[in-house]
């Protein structure tokens, strides 16, 4: 446990030397302010301009979903970049043969940041949400977002072998978050083409305002995590 704790704090200390990664950790707060205070102002301006009752507000639920996924995705991105750098510098390989072990390394780099992301989301989402979600929605959105973050992390790690490739693959991997937008924009059954994406069901649940649609989300997330983790463990 000592090695895991120190390895995690080692990563946090390391972030202070990389301003890009440090800024990524603060992104949820900055984006939260933008979503909560700037978007309603835009909505007022747009409705006045176009003389319509709503422009952005029907999509507030979608904006909240994306915000719930933001902290896990950002913390995941930071962990991935540190891991890929450790992979480039071969320090990860060395850490596996210290009392930290491979198992402890995975907990320090992905387990603890994921738990931290979950807590941050549970705290920030009620502050910055635009929709009147009950607490049960907030917890489920935060849990779904956190697991979605782990999927993104594993996708990047599986598809890239160094930091440079990781940066490129990150853009591609985060696209799976946008499955949540499909139920908001595609009305007929063709939307189910993207139903293998867990984010699709999160979007569906919020759009339909029914937790029933959340049911496929978690089994799907676990299947994605299981398949990607298998690939990743084979790779390292």
């Amino acid at each position, binding site marked *: 446990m*000592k*090695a895991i704790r*120190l*390895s995690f704090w*080692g990563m946090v200390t*390391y972030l202070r*030397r*990389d301003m890009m990664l440090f800024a990524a950790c603060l992104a949820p707060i900055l984006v939260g302010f933008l979503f909560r205070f700037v978007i309603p102002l835009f909505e007022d301006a747009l409705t006045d301009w176009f003389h319509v009752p709503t422009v952005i507000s029907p999509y507030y639920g979608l904006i909240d979903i994306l915000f719930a996924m933001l902290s896990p995705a950002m913390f995941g991105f930071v962990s991935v970049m540190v891991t890929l750098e*450790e992979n480039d*510098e*071969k*320090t990860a*390989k*060395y*850490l*596996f*043969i*210290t*009392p*930290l*072990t491979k198992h*402890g390394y995975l907990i320090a780099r992905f387990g603890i940041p994921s738990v931290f992301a979950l807590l941050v989301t549970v705290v920030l989402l009620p502050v910055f949400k635009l929709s009147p979600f009950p607490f049960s929605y907030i917890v489920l959105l935060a849990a779904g977002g956190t697991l979605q973050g782990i999927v993104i992390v594993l996708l990047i790690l599986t598809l890239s072998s160094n930091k440079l490739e990781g940066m490129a693959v990150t853009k591609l991997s985060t696209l799976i978050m946008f499955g949540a937008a499909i139920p908001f924009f595609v009305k007929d059954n063709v939307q189910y083409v993207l139903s293998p994406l867990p984010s699709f069901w999160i979007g569906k649940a919020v759009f339909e305002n029914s937790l029933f649609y959340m049911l496929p989300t978690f089994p799907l997330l676990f299947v994605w995590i299981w398949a990607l983790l298998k690939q990743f463990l084979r790779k390292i």
Partner: protein
Amino acid sequence: MIQVKNLSFSYTKQPFISDMSFSVSSGEIFGFLGPSGAGKSTLQKVLIGMLTTYQGSAIVNGVECRERTKNFYENIGVDFEFSTMYEKLTAKENLRFFSSLYEKKSRPIEQLLEKAGLEHDADKRVSDYSKGMKARLNFIKALLHDPLLLCLDEPTSGLDPTNSRVMKDMILEEKAKGKTILLTTHNMQDAAELCDRVAFIVGGKICALDSPHKLIMSKGATTVTYTWMENEEHSASCPLDCLSADEQLKRLIAENRLQSIHSSEPTLNDIFMDLTGRTLL
């Protein structure tokens, strides 16, 4: 310290290490010699618990390697051939971080840095280090937790003669403290100088295992080659132990006509070539 019995391992369906058996005593420097791809590094990975899907038995410090726990690593120090340091951190920060991962009390960092000749560069980022400095830093990192077993992979690779000497002296110093050392190398001079015993590994098998001296002696006597002028330069050789019976040599010495004379001892590389038909270099 190490008992390996009928060890086999494969990455694919083809065996990569097959039916290897040997043991290493405490306080011994044991060398794995062989060309690239022979299986030396794979064997080392098995012994440090990085590869666990092997057949047979590999016991290190009383622990079967596939059943290792985190405590297994409290007594193993590994020096890979490549740098395994955080490049953005200083040498001291790196050493402090890695030593903090162990339960055991760390050896004094300043003392280790001084021993490796890095005391004046301790606060320099590792990215600013030369290859030789990185190699020395990598080596002292493996010593931080004062392990009983040291696994060294090509520790003198790429070092200039002075730094190579520093490194070899540090290895011998650890041996004097009773540490067991596994040395993976294809540098025959290092192996002959440092190792108590060496194992030649080719194609995932041990072809020979003995002390360097005994392996060299098994090749036969040293030969002496001499040259002299007689219209043009001539040369002849004879075994060292038959030198007194070489009448031509005796005559040339008596007539002071020798141009040159030198002995050539067989090297581990010669033995390796004899046994395997391949070269170590």
